């Protein structure tokens, strides 16, 4: 009997599939669940702004945070740096335990740049990285590539707390949300900064990072210092144990940044 099916043209076989009348699972009403999820997050106008406006929001948010912290008011702000969204909120009490993050496949830095569409800038202050990974991530804007470079600790580069590396630099492609950072008022600090004249975001202390990977979403507790800055069409994230000024020096040692 299936011989006849096999002999059908694509059009006729497609028509036969269309007539299959598949028994779908009962469709749930998504409206209440979507409404509940939306109610627990801010309005879209606070989230997706053109990049220039978004970066201005970083400064505005930092200034607002100082005011709010002074008044001991719970802050809940969202800052969009392109591929990385930062939310500032109250601590839930205990931070989630770090989980193993799949950074992608090992790759050489040249191929990683090819995958992402332009050469990867290596911070001259750090030299060639010890490890390079690339991961393909499917986002609402399509498939994008995230590249991660890592350097082992040296005398000048202290280890990142809880990590075997002294510096980790991620370059996110595109503006889709690939990482979501939650900075808690009582365990971390956050402020605006500048990298090569571009507005940036500086975070110290324990916070949480939710990272979209090729294998799903990984939640990590971050204890290092993190510098985030946009370099269109990319967003860069540098994690170290270095103080702010030195981390900025590392970032600005990437050719074309300063």
């Amino acid at each position, binding site marked *: *009997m299936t011989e006849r099916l096999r002999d059908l043209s694509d059009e006729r076989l497609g028509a036969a599939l269309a007539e299959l009348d*598949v028994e779908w*699972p009962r*469709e749930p*009403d998504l409206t209440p669940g979507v409404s509940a999820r939306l109610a627990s997050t801010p309005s879209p*106008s606070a989230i997706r702004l053109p990049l220039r406006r978004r970066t201005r929001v970083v400064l505005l948010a930092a200034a607002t945070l100082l005011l709010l912290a002074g008044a001991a008011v719970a802050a809940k702000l969202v800052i969009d740096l392109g591929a990385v969204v930062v939310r500032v909120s109250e601590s839930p009490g205990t931070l989630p335990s770090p989980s193993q993050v799949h950074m992608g496949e090992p790759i050489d830095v040249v191929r990683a740049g090819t995958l992402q569409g332009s050469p990867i800038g290596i911070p001259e202050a750090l030299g060639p990285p010890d490890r390079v990974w690339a991961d393909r991530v499917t986002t*609402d804007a399509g498939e994008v590539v995230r590249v991660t470079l890592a350097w082992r600790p040296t005398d000048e580069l202290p280890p990142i707390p809880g990590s075997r590396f002294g510096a980790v630099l991620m370059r996110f492609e595109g503006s889709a949300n690939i990482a979501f950072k939650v900075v808690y008022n009582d365990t971390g600090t956050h402020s605006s900064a500048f990298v090569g004249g571009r507005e940036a975001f500086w975070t110290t202390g324990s916070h949480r990072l939710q990272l979209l990977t090729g294998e799903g979403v990984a939640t990590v507790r971050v204890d290092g210092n993190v510098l985030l800055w946009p370099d269109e069409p990319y967003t860069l994230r540098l994690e170290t144990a270095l103080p702010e000024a030195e981390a900025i020096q590392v970032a600005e040692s990437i050719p074309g940044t300063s």
Partner: protein
Amino acid sequence: MEGRPLEDAELARRAREGDDGAYAELVRRYGPIAFRVAWLVTRDRDEAEDAAQEAFVKAYYALPRFRSDLPLRPWLLRIVANEARNRARSGRRRERLALRAAAVSDRDAAPSPETAALAHEDRDALVTAMNRLEPRDREVIGYRFLLGLSEAETAEVLDVRLGTAKSRLSRAMQRLRAVLEVET
């Protein structure tokens, strides 16, 4: 929302401006097909529901990026499919439900020519073959023929160019035939 239903673009515009009711209307309008898109990928009811809900949340935040001169449905469904694929890849291994053909009922008393030609055994063979396909092939065939998306919509939901979608569908149909041959 009385009178003539509002166009998608108008609902999207209102939702962007903070009209929660407008967005709820879009969720009601496209929730069922969004769930089916997610289910085709995950083949798990709970996971599909969760993926579809999360996708609608992401779509809400992405509305300012949506070009109002383009159709909303494939744009929404692409977000749903991406969310479902991410979950399917995330390593959670569950028992995946298989596609099933609905029981033949009285409404088949006046079948279309295709239905008339599609004997009971053929239906079983097709469903079995669909379930044996690789997820990637099942997805493209499912979008195009089971959900009735146009070729252009299928391409957008797969996030590939139209030509790529057509060739992917053609290859998937070849593999469907190959599976049917093995079953003979």
